[in-house]
C-alpha cells in the first residue's frame, strides 16, 4: 500500500488532502475506538472503510471534520494543521459529509432551500446560491425537485438530494457514511453511477461489499481500534447475485 501511496504522491506531486497521525479516541464506557491511527487521503482516491458495527468508522469521519474532538493525535487537512473549532469550519466546507440518515441532513422545508443552505453559509449571495443549487440538482438529474417538500421524498430521492446538498458546496473530498443504506436496486445503481462520475476523493463507509467493489480504489478495515489496509473483497458477481436471491 505504501508503495502505491508514494507513487500516487509522486505522480501528482501533491501533499495528501487529509493526513492524520496518531489519532486516538475513546468513549467513556466503550473503551478506545481509535488507537494511534494513521491515515492519508490523496487526490483521486476512493477509499473503502469497512469494519464491524460500532468499530468507530463514523467516529473517524466525525473527527476528520471536527464534530468530535480527538483525545490525541494530529489532523492536517488541506495543508494546514487543524485543532480548534474555528479551523474546522473551513475543513467542513471543503470536505462534504454525507450523513447516514438523510433525514438528519435535509432540514429545510423545500429541496431548493436545503441545497442552497451550504452555498449561502459559504457567503454566496442569494442569487448565486440559488443558481448553484439549481445547477447541482440538474447535474444529478434532479430537475423539477426544487419545490418538493423534503420530508415527502422517497428514500432514494432523499439520498440523492442530500448528496446534492453536499455537492453544492463544491467540496474537494467526500465523506460518505453508508451511502447505499436502505436503497433499492435502482436507487443504489443511480447513486453508484453518480459517485463514479465525480472527480472528488472519497472515503466511503459501507457494509455493501459489492457497492464498494465497484467504487473503491483502496480498502481499509477498522477493527479493535486499529486501521489496517485490507484486501478488496474481490468482485464476485456470482456471489453477489447469489446473496440477493432469497433462499
Amino acid at each position, binding site marked *: 500500500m505504501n508503495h502505491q501511496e508514494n507513487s500516487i504522491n509522486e505522480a501528482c506531486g501533491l501533499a495528501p488532502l487529509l493526513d492524520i497521525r496518531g489519532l486516538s479516541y475513546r468513549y467513556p464506557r466503550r473503551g478506545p475506538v481509535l488507537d494511534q491511527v494513521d491515515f492519508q487521503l490523496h487526490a483521486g482516491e476512493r477509499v473503502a472503510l469497512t469494519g464491524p458495527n460500532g468499530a468507530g468508522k463514523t467516529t473517524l469521519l466525525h473527527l476528520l471534520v471536527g464534530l468530535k474532538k480527538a483525545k490525541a493525535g494530529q489532523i492536517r487537512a488541506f495543508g494546514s494543521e487543524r485543532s480548534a473549532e474555528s479551523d474546522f*469550519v473551513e475543513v*467542513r466546507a471543503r470536505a462534504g459529509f454525507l450523513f447516514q440518515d438523510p433525514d*438528519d441532513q435535509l432540514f429545510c*422545508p423545500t429541496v431548493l432551500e436545503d441545497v442552497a443552505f451550504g452555498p449561502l453559509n459559504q457567503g454566496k449571495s442569494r442569487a448565486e446560491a440559488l443558481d448553484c443549487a439549481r445547477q447541482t440538482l440538474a447535474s444529478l438529474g434532479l430537475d423539477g425537485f426544487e419545490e418538493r417538500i423534503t*420530508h415527502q421524498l422517497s428514500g432514494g430521492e432523499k439520498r440523492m438530494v442530500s448528496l446534492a446538498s453536499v455537492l453544492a458546496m463544491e467540496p474537494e473530498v467526500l465523506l460518505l457514511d453508508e451511502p447505499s443504506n436502505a436503497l433499492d436496486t435502482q436507487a443504489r445503481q443511480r447513486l453508484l453511477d453518480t459517485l463514479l462520475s465525480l472527480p472528488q476523493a472519497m472515503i466511503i463507509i459501507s457494509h455493501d461489499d459489492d457497492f464498494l467493489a465497484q467504487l473503491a480504489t483502496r480498502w481499509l478495515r477498522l477493527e479493535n481500534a486499529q486501521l489496517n489496509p485490507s484486501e478488496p473483497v474481490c468482485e464476485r458477481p456470482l456471489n453477489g447475485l447469489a446473496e440477493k436471491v432469497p433462499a
Partner: protein
Amino acid sequence: MPQGLEHSGTSWKGQQLKHRQSAVDRLDPRARVVAVSAFALVVVLSSDLMALSLALAGSLLLALVARLNLKRTLRRVIAMDLFMLFLILMLPFTTPGEPIFHVAGLPASQEGLVHALQITLKANAVVLALLALVGTQTATTLGHALAHLRVPDKLVHLMLFTVRYLEVIGQEYKRMRRAMQARAFVLRANRHSWRSIGYLIGMLLVHSLERSERIMDAMKCRGYQGRFYLFDDMRLTAVDVRFGVLLALFLSLLIGLHLL
C-alpha cells in the same frame, strides 16, 4: 402550489391536501397574519352581542371568499366547540344574576347565558378567520411570514423545525408502538402498561435528542454558523392595501358599535 396548514395527530401528510385557489391567496402572507391578529384582538376585547354577531358574519364571509372546504372546516370548528361545550353549558348556572329558567332546581342566570353566547361567538369568529386567512398558507410560509414580521428567530426556527420533524418523530413513535404490538403488548389499565408507555415516551425523547444532535452536526458540516436565510421576498401589493383598508373599516365599525 399552496398546501394548507393541515395536520392530523402525528402526521403532516395532510400538507399534501390541496385547497382551492382563492382571492385570499393573492394577499401577502404577512398581511394575513397581521389582519387575523388585529381581528382577533378587537373581537376578544368586545362584549357587544351585535358587534360579535357582525364579526362572526364577517369571518363567515372571509371563509366563503377563501373557499374553505366545508366539511373539513366544519369538523375543526365543531372540534373546538366541543372543547368549549362544558364551559358554555356551565356558565349560565354558575354566574350569579337574574334567573330566567331552572334545570333540575338550578337557576340559569341571564348574565351567564349572555356570557356563554359571547364566548361562543368570539371563539367561532376568531377560528373561522384564522382558518380562512392563516390556515390556507403552508406552515412554512407562515413561518417565513412570522420571520419577516420580526417574530424572534428562536420561535420561528422552533416552528419550522417542528413542522419538518413532526412526521419523522411521529414515524419513530409508530415504529416503536408497532414493535410493542408485535410482542403482544396491549394497552391496559395496569402498571405494566403504564411503565411500558413511559419507556416508549422516554425513548422517543432520547431519540429526538440524539437526532437533534445529528441534525446540528449535519448543519455544521454545511457551514452553519447561526444564521438562516429566507428566500421569499414578500411584497405588499395594491390588493393587500385594499384588504387592509376594508378590514380597518370593518374593525372600526365593530369598535364603533361598542361605543354607541
